[in-house]
């Protein structure tokens, strides 16, 4: 007869990840690497926006990109074509990255010589918001065709973001029911500290404000 015993664990799954993320944030701070966690739904324009951002900053910063995807190398190849280092992490079917997976990816990548690492998270507005990756700042992209009601439907995502980029604003003429003021107000209600920029990764419209914000954040971080 086996003797089973009960062992009290009392460990929160989310709290474990939060603690791990906080440790990773400190490690990165010591190393001086700024980790930007970029989130959005699939097709909002993460890779295109990233390519334009890299083109504008690569002369002044050493940039690396970690692409998290369920499968494929498509995004990493597109980014590497911009002349910066890129690595693809396969999440093996998982819908988000947690702090432990991020740390493993960074370790494999080697980040000592990098000023800015962008983590392109899995395209999804739910799960990535629940798991702190250990990033320095969180950014999300909402594209105009997705509609102005996204903050109402995915409140947590907008709550955890430091900056919201409303992309594809060149299509506002087509999607003319997209209410620019209403979406800003919805974001402000959820997260009064979030910066909001209207941009078009295709035409470059609005990139001045976004690049200036990112540059300022990185400078403040390294001081």
């Amino acid at each position, binding site marked *: 007869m*086996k*003797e*089973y*015993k*009960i*062992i*009290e*664990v*009392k*460990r*929160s*799954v*989310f709290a*474990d*990840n939060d603690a791990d993320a906080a440790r990773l944030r400190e490690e990165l701070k010591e190393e001086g690497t700024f980790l930007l966690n970029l989130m959005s739904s699939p097709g909002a324009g993460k890779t295109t926006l990233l390519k334009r951002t890299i083109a504008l900053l690569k002369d002044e910063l050493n940039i690396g990109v970690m692409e998290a995807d369920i499968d494929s190398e498509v995004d990493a190849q597109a980014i590497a074509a911009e002349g910066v280092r890129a690595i693809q992490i396969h999440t093996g*079917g*998982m*819908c*988000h990255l*947690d702090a432990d997976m991020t740390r493993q990816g960074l370790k494999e990548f080697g980040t000592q010589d990098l000023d800015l690492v962008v983590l392109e998270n899995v395209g*999804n507005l*739910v*799960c990535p918001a*629940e*798991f702190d990756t250990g990033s320095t700042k969180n950014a999300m992209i909402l594209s105009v065709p997705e509609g102005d009601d996204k903050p109402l439907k995915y409140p947590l995502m907008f709550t955890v973001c430091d900056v919201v980029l409303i992309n594809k604003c060149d299509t506002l003429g087509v999607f003319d029911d997209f209410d620019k003021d209403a979406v800003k107000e919805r974001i402000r209600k959820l997260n009064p500290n979030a910066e909001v920029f209207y941009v078009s990764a295709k035409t470059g419209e609005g990139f001045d404000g976004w690049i200036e914000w990112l540059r300022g954040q990185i400078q403040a971080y390294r001081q």
Partner: protein
Amino acid sequence: MHELGVVFHVIRTVEEVARENALTEIRSVTLELGEVSAVIDTYLENCWKWAVANRTEIMKEAELIIEKLPAVTYCGDCRKTYETVAYGKICPYCGSGHTWLLQGNEFTIKEIEGC
């Protein structure tokens, strides 16, 4: 939404605790799950069955026991508490939105049973 991911996380933790306590067989794992933890218990059970059978050695037949915790919100203006699921962020007593969750988003490994 991310039931499989959290199941892997739970398995890692349980395996760690088992090593620390020199357990070689896990019979059950008890989780405390808040009503608004964004984890759906039926999905969780399906993911659990698959993951323990295919991705573990010491807990292939471990039972998952889920204890649900109700979600309760506190109103900072009228200082009453109410059921989160029924009323959301707006206090049903005074209409204030100045409210916060007291409990209900837990996802905790409470205990494990093994030998």
